[in-house]
């Protein structure tokens, strides 16, 4: 340690005390991580490897798995029929992520900049739907959007409409459902990132003559990029593999990757093909994750650079 080290006075006899054993220096702690490692290996890695293995095998007549090497599953995955489903799921994920980002950002910004008490209240109010069982959330949404649901009930009673609106069992239902479900997932990382922001930088920008638009696009958004990326990842990856919402709110009319995989495993019972699809899904999710990780670390470096240039004396010039 560079500072604070007391200088040994020459007349003091140097007694060597035994080096104090810190609790976490125990030899035992070297091995406490081992059970966790074994668990991950056994219940995570091996099952995934088996799925990967299955993707190279063949399907038997009644849905059994034949142990013959077969690469046709991957060729099948790239067929236009299935590719269309994958692209559609991609589009759903992009749409959900985009809209959630747009809607969540102003909310997260407000939460980040308000006083402590409101912040806590708003945080609790956002976390509650986030933690409520997602099936129950979808069920509640279906009650509201259904043809005999509350919205249509009100509109028909008040004679605003003669025919009920078709808000569910179609693409619109899926769209609304996805956003309703994934909105809190976007708000929380955004909030965490926006809260840590140094807002004096915004003040500095205004002082230097920037207008509101420039401040937002050149300072606020770049600084909140790590949070934005994390939020997008939390929404994009699960919504890409979603199957429940298209099932319950879409009248099971359209097939997305999640539906396809479930159907392949549970109805068609083509485990090898389903495994190939799952492998593809994992690959794309990993790619998204790696991409975000790379960009977040790059963006975080920028933020750190900016913070590093902060001159400590400046703080005194502000009253």
């Amino acid at each position, binding site marked *: 340690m560079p500072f604070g080290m007391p200088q040994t006075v020459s007349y003091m006899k140097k007694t060597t005390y035994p080096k104090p054993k810190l609790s976490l220096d125990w030899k035992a702690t070297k091995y406490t991580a081992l059970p966790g490692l074994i668990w*991950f290996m056994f219940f995570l890695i091996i099952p995934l490897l088996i799925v990967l293995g299955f993707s190279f095998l063949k399907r038997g007549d009644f849905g059994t798995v034949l142990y013959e090497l077969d690469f046709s599953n991957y060729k099948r995955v790239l067929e236009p029929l299935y590719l269309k489903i994958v692209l559609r799921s991609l589009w759903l994920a992009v749409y959900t992520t985009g809209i959630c980002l747009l809607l969540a950002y102003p909310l997260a910004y407000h939460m980040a900049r308000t006083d402590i008490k409101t912040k806590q209240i708003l945080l609790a109010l956002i976390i509650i739907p986030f933690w409520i069982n997602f099936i*129950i959330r979808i069920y509640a949404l279906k009650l509201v959007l259904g043809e005999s649901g509350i919205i249509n009930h009100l509109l028909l009673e008040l004679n605003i409409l003669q025919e009920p609106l078709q808000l569910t069992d179609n693409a619109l239902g899926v769209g609304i459902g996805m956003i309703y479900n994934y909105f809190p997932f976007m708000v929380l990382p955004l909030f965490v990132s926006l809260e840590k922001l140094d807002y004096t930088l915004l003040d500095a920008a205004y002082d230097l003559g920037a207008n509101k638009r420039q401040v937002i696009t050149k300072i606020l958004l770049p600084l909140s990029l790590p949070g934005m990326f994390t939020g997008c990842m939390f929404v994009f990856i699960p919504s890409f593999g979603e199957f429940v919402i298209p099932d319950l709110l879409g009248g099971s009319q359209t097939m997305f990757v999640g539906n396809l995989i479930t159907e392949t*495993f549970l109805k068609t019972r083509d485990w090898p093909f389903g495994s190939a699809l799952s492998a593809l899904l994992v690959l794309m999710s990993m790619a998204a994750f790696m991409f975000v990780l790379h960009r977040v670390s790059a963006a975080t470096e920028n933020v750190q650079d900016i913070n590093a240039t902060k001159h400590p004396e400046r703080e005194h010039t502000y009253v």
Partner: protein
Amino acid sequence: MRQSTLSVNIHMFDLKKIYTAVILLLLYFPLFALAVLSFRGGPTPFYWYQKAFSQPQLMLVLKNSIIIAFWTMIFSTVLGTLTAIGLYKKNTKAPVWFESLIHLPLVLPEIVMGLALLIWFVFLNITLGKLSVVLAHTTFSVSYVILILRARFKNMDPLQEEAAADLGATPWKTFWYVTFPFLLPAIVSGALLSFTLSFDDFLITFFTAGVGSDTLPVQIYSMMRFGITPEMNAISVIVLLFTIIAVLMLFRLRSEKI
């Protein structure tokens, strides 16, 4: 004249407040509607609640959900705490491959995890039941516990431990009287989180549940596909209530953290 963000806020203040209020209204409206609906349609407001509690199937799945969540909490908290202690002592960084391993359940789509575990259990000839669900839930809960503890470790001041050792405490005493109390809020947060995650989980349970070990979310999903009964509304509102209580408990814990 300094155009501070503060004055901008005052101009935009009302707009932001309105926006927030509208969003929260939209978010809570379906839940509110669900609660209102659960009290209607029967002779007394609590009719459906009483019926729900007397329906053996609903009670069975509720019991399953609680038991599974409880054991998941125990397993993942113990496993996660041990792993975090082994990895993050003295604020060292864990090896990259281990970090990726910990993050894997969070990044993997749940559907793939559920199916992979199903295939694995079938391979091992493990009977699907409550145990298989607990094993599956623990696998992804552990990651959350580890990450929460890691954040806590980052804030730990190693000098505290050295001070205790200087004062003559044995390693065990140091751990028990200094480190463990410091970690406790994080451990409890992790336990609470893993309980909630397990209780709420649908997708992974859907694939790994066996005969008679369905959980509440799986049951509600089946009922939504087969036909909704009003008792479901009552049960859903009860789950809602428990979630709210859990969140409030978590917030009280956070404010108690030093």
